[in-house]
């Protein structure tokens, strides 16, 4: 594992109006590291992930992804747009609700952005898309529209769609929370492969403790907008020091 962080957050704060949702978050993620972020509903986990790819702009602090830095504060719109774009090209995101494009077929879902954003030739984009659809095991559905897929298949297509942009970091926001229990396994298996085989750097918000223990290098507990405690899964799950972490773990385990 590379020790140079690929994602680093420095003193990141996020306010929604009068509501401080992220409180002075500082954290590093090393290349190929898998981080699981967990905590109560409303603790700011989604907001943290969304600040990494700037779907939310932090109120203050500094974010760096693969050498591209973004300092919160006033910017000219040209600079902001360029930085936001550079950071998004390095991050892929998977949403709880999949957010596949319903008007496009599976292969178009995965190949549209490389064509539109990277100006890749359609043939090359589709070839690359097929490669990742095969990786996540839904290549046979390439001409279907998302509505015809099961939840597990949808989420695997969404993962392939993000991978086709060849990001350096993958952000997963509760990728299995909207799935029927019997479909969770197939998505977690894909994510596990992604971490193992491809050595992808991953930040995962999830309460799947089995997955965390097996795949994560580090678990991070969030509470009311702050990072409370972190550590390797085995240590944190057995020996959490903070009572809030202990209480939460007791509830989910």
């Amino acid at each position, binding site marked *: 594992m590379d020790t140079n962080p690929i994602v680093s957050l420095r003193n990141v704060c996020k306010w929604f109006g009068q509501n401080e949702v992220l409180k002075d978050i500082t954290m590093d993620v090393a290349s190929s590291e898998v981080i699981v972020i967990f905590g109560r509903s409303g603790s700011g986990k989604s907001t943290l992930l969304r600040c990494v*790819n700037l*779907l939310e702009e932090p109120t203050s602090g500094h974010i760096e992804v693969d050498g591209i830095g973004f300092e919160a504060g006033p910017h000219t719109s040209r600079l902001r*747009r360029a930085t936001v*774009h550079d950071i*998004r*090209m390095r*991050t*892929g*995101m998977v*949403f709880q*609700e999949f*957010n*596949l*494009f*319903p*008007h496009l077929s599976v292969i178009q879902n995965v190949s*549209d*952005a490389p064509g*539109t*954003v*990277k100006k890749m030739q359609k043939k090359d984009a589709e070839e690359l898309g097929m490669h990742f659809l095969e990786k996540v095991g839904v290549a046979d559905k390439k001409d279907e529209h998302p509505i015809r897929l099961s939840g597990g298949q949808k989420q695997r297509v*969404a993962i392939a*769609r*993000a991978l086709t*942009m060849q990001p350096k970091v993958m952000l997963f926001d509760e990728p299995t929370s909207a799935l029927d229990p019997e479909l969770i396994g197939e998505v977690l298996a894909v994510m596990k492969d992604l971490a193992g085989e491809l050595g992808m750097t991953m930040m995962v918000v999830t309460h799947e403790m089995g997955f965390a223990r097996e795949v994560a290098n580090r678990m991070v507990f969030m509470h009311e907008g702050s990072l409370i405690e972190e550590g390797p899964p085995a240590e944190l799950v057995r020996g959490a020091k903070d009572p809030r972490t202990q209480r939460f773990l007791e509830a989910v385990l």
Partner: protein
Amino acid sequence: MTTRTVDGVRDAIEAWLGRFSFRTKLAVVWAFIFVALAVLFVAFQFDTQFMVDWLPYILGGVPLTILISVGGILLAVPLALVAALARISSNPVLYGVSGFYISFIRGTPLIVQIFFIYLGLPQLASYAPEALAPLFILGSVTSGILALGLNYGAYMAEIFRAGIQSVGYGQAEAAQALGMTRWQTTRRIVLPQAVRTIIPPTGNEFIAMTKDSALVGIVGTQELFFRASKIGRQYFHSLETPSSPR
């Protein structure tokens, strides 16, 4: 005793009516209306020969009616799209101007707008530089198309805006997370989905516009309605003329 008899008769009628389906009864109602109209037609001595004589002239307005409607819709659709996008943008200039356009147009009668463009604009021409002056003096057809396009553009902007906003926000977020710009997101992800909700009400607007194009006749455009009312007034046959093209 008598109430008994009345009830009995009512029950018998009800039983008899019950034997017929809704559709059959509806057909009878329509037949009655049709007959009533035919009776009126005869009673008021509709001059059928007059109608036949002038029909070709009046129908000669059909191409112009179609031209005005199609021209109007071709102008209204892009206008509505731009106004709708401006209405949901965070740019204060775009937002303000489109807001003014939509409420101004929706707040004034179409007939006033037609007069304003046909008769009001030429008056402004005297203030314009000489080279530009002809731009302010529009033919009746051009001003009709312009007025209808502007008017329907404002109404359709609201339809378009609702259609665009019916696309879930998660769609735009997913597209932006993939690195698409705002415009790419709008064009490739949001609009194609919005079109499905937009098309049916847009069809209704087109039908309404075809009917509203009759108003353009008031400024002397020789479309259907103008011809019909001109002949009607001239020969005191205004009952017949609007009926004849139908």
